[in-house]
């Protein structure tokens, strides 16, 4: 039974990965899913790879360090995201910086690839900065309306969910090759960050 469950994991991972990669480009304003503002916020995050990838990288990094790190990230990142989002909603002007987004990819992917032995304090600070920065960008992109706060809650909920799943997935990995595979994923994220940096500089 256990073998049967394990054998399906690559299939579901590939399915989810294909779904994420087929996402349409994210737009600054919240798109309506027809299921209410909570799910609008949920969908906003799911359709934004530039938000998802750093969250996954941080969750994998925390998971590699152990359950304690995972738990800390699980609560700090969504809280910081919410605070940043509320602040962003109040400003409501777009200030997305492609170089900074690429830098997050590079930093978190590089740390993950190197399996950096960060202290719990540094990991917490990383989660707080990432949450505030991306939450702020999300908040200012959503615009001011009566439902924005609910949409923000949906967005924060999916951040919580993603961190919980990704960190828990890595915490239970014991085999050396599986942990190396996670680090290889980190190197891919860092390499993507480098290329994004090139695109950003070229576009200027």
């Amino acid at each position, binding site marked *: 039974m256990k073998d049967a469950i394990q054998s399906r994991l690559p*299939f579901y991972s590939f*399915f989810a990965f294909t779904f994420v990669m087929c996402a349409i480009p994210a737009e600054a304003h919240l798109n309506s899913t027809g299921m209410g503002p909570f799910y609008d916020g949920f969908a906003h995050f799911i359709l934004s790879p530039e938000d998802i990838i750093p969250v996954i990288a941080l969750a994998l990094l925390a998971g590699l360090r152990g359950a304690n790190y995972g738990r800390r990230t699980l609560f700090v990142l969504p809280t910081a995201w919410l605070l940043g989002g509320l602040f962003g909603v109040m400003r409501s002007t777009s200030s997305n910086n492609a170089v900074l987004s690429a830098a997050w990819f590079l930093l978190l992917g590089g740390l993950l690839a190197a399996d950096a032995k960060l202290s719990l304090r540094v990991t917490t600070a990383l989660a707080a900065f990432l949450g505030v920065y991306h939450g702020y960008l999300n908040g200012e992109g959503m615009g001011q309306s009566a439902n924005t706060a609910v949409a923000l809650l949906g967005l924060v909920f999916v951040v919580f969910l993603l961190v919980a799943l990704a960190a828990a997935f890595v915490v239970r990995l014991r085999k050396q090759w599986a942990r190396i595979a996670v680090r290889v994923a980190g190197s891919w994220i860092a*390499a993507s960050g480098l290329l994004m940096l090139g*695109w950003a*500089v070229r576009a200027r």
Partner: protein
Amino acid sequence: MNTPRQRPMVREVVLALFVFLCAEMAFAHPQKGEAVGFLTGFRHPLSGLDHVLAMVAVGLWGAQLGSPAIWVLPVAFPMVMAVGGMLGLMGVPLPWTEYGIALSAILLGAAVMFEVRPRLGIAAALVGFFAIFHGHAHGTELPPGQSALLYSMGFVIATGCLHALGIGIGTVHRWVWGQKLLRIAGALVAVGGTLFMWKAVA
């Protein structure tokens, strides 16, 4: 009856259906070279045989050298290749790019053919050095498009998959016949690199 033989087939059909449903919108005219998304980025490293040969050879060599080279080399290559790609995108010139790419296939193929076993640092430095040429060639060929992120991810993942293909083929190294087969594969890569060098010089 839902037998164990039938179940994987159902999974594959569902997956294939899903991938077809996610197909990109067709346009009347081809959009040559535009970075339109993940699939365009994924296709780019596969578009040139010289790139494919070198990237598969990195995986073959890593598998031949064993741990930790089996994962250090395929990690080093995309990272340094991205640096080269970044330089290309920024317009920083790099001389003799075509020669560098052809030479990478020749030397990496020869390393596999003769089962060269240098120290890990030297092997990683050699692979990284050639990765800059590959990345730069890709970077200069790409005009800006819609989604730099998805394009970049597709590009890097395709490179990683080519390394994984090389590693997968390289697992035959555990058998005596497999070791011979790998050396022949290395020779083929080196011959391919020589042909590309000939084209570059001519």
